[in-house]
């Protein structure tokens, strides 16, 4: 019985669909001071069933890019397509998980998970069963009747992920979903996300500023430049799956980490250096380019 419910989520998600293409993309915000280019000339893609991360210094336009894929923002130039179809607005085909959890406080855990299915007009008993199964996968079946208010951050975000997956989307977009969690919880959440991703064979676009997280989770990592953000590097992660926590100590992992770290550090310094020279503190910005201070950062 539960298997049936799971299958609906699996079949509607699977079928090798969910290719994201972002071509010649740029996006500017209109402000009083004129237009501010947040993302410039960017190309990325996610293959069906692939797990891709975007890392970059804060303010480089990661959320902007992700929100454009979700359909909340229109590109200034370029195009975003999913399975060849241009993205025109938000849709249940593209599930999204937010850093601020964004669960509906007036709905119980199960009602939150059922929301997307309810919007699709699925009948009550069917969606109840599907929600239970998915909550079970995330180890949350005991909390189905709780209000989000009473859950820990990790549990809330598990509900957020389950809710986004419950409509059987083609792709899952996550914007620093574990940024507000403590280190131990984050590790568990990464494991849970990996499990669900493998189970549902869905494409994932994952935004984070945590390099370890990006390497541990992804098949491929895009590294963005400081604002206006564009793709600085694309790094395949050839680590075999299933991945264990212990792999984070392997020389392969550490090598990837070192490479990404230096790319990001360069961009972070560029971003901060800009701010510091703005303040007229030239001397400090020169020192900042030195290795010792950069290490402190």
């Amino acid at each position, binding site marked *: 019985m539960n298997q049936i419910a799971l299958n609906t989520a699996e079949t509607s998600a699977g079928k090798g669909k969910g290719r994201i293409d972002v071509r010649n993309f740029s996006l500017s915000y209109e402000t009083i001071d004129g237009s501010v280019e947040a993302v410039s000339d960017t190309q990325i893609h996610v293959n069906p069933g692939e797990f891709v991360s975007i890392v970059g210094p804060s303010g480089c336009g990661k959320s902007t890019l992700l929100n454009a894929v*979700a359909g*909340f923002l229109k590109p200034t130039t370029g195009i975003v397509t999913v399975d060849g179809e241009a993205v025109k*607005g*938000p*849709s*249940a085909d*593209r*599930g*999204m998980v*937010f850093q*601020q959890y*964004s669960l*509906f*406080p*007036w*709905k119980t855990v199960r009602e939150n998970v059922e*929301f*997307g299915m309810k*919007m*699709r007009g699925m009948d009550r008993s069917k969606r109840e069963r599907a929600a239970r199964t998915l909550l079970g996968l995330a180890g949350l079946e005991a909390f189905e009747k709780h*209000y989000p*208010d009473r859950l820990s951050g990790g549990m809330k975000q598990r509900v957020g992920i389950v*809710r*986004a997956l419950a*409509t059987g989307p083609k792709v899952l977009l996550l914007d620093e979903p574990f940024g507000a969690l403590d280190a131990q919880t984050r590790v568990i959440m990464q494991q849970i996300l990996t499990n669900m991703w493998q189970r549902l064979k869905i494409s994932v676009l994952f935004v984070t500023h945590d390099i370890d997280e990006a390497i541990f989770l992804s098949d491929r990592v895009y590294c963005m430049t400081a604002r206006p953000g564009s793709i600085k590097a694309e790094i395949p992660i050839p680590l075999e799956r299933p991945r264990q926590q212990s792999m984070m100590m392997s020389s392969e992992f550490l090598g990837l980490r070192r490479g990404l770290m230096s790319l990001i550090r360069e961009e972070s310094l560029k971003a901060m250096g800009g701010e510091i020279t703005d303040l007229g503190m030239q001397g400090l910005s020169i020192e900042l380019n030195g290795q010792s201070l950069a290490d402190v950062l």
Partner: protein
Amino acid sequence: MSSPALARDPVEPNLVESTTVVPPKIEAKQPTITTPSPQGAAIGALAARWYRLNKDKLQATLIGTLSLVAFLIAWHLLTKYRVVFFVRFTNVPSPLAVYDSFTRAIHDPKFFLHVALSCRRILVGFSLAAVVAIPLGLVMGRFKRIHEMVFPVAEVLRPIPAIAWVPMAIMLWPTNEQSIVFITFLGSFFPILVNTLHGMSLVDPVLVRAARCLGAREASIFREVYFPASLPHIFTGLTVGMGVAWVSLIAAEMISGQYGIGYFTWEAYSLVQYPDIALGMIAIGLLGLASSLLIRAMGRFVMPWGRT
């Protein structure tokens, strides 16, 4: 061949079970029969535990009761000795006199008529205000154009106290009853509208985006996100509105009424029945308290996710 085997099989486990189950039963019974004192101790422990958990509440109740008693004693002494110290207590009825008039009033159907009529006016005026102001506030909060159209008018009318509407209301409505209900409506209308608007302006945009990502259309977002998200503020508006409704009602009844608890209080003054003044005031206070408790209870029922 097979049937005796089948017959024997279910019997044997039963025998085994009964032999193994019985001794523990006896063991379990013995302590409960022979020693009732642990049970008493358990109840005692439970009571102690309950006391510890509710200590603060008990203390608050005790202090509250004491302060009420102190108030009554002060009132009694001030009126008994007819204290004149800036304020004159010469004609103020004593608590006992008010109690006397209370015992008379509860046998007087006319008193109940006053109370019932006031309650009906509140019910009609307040309900109409809620039915108009809540949807209006929701729609105004959602659609900028409607907000731009309605808001200036609302802002001009809002500072006018409902009591100032009394002459206008008498002109507008054919009967006194209608004009009093209208005053009550006006009194509660603006607090409900303003708070609903406030609630709408505080709806977390991330929740709206989350709903969009899950396939919600405009109508569903309104029903499933904006409305429940604004509910706490709507209930704040209802509570405030209920208070203002009573204020407006009593004033209107005193000015233009023929019945109602406000009229009863004013009439008592005209007829020099001073204890009835205090009785009317206390009745008004209790009715106001009861109606705000009612709204609080409704809020809790409608919003089970709230912490309060």
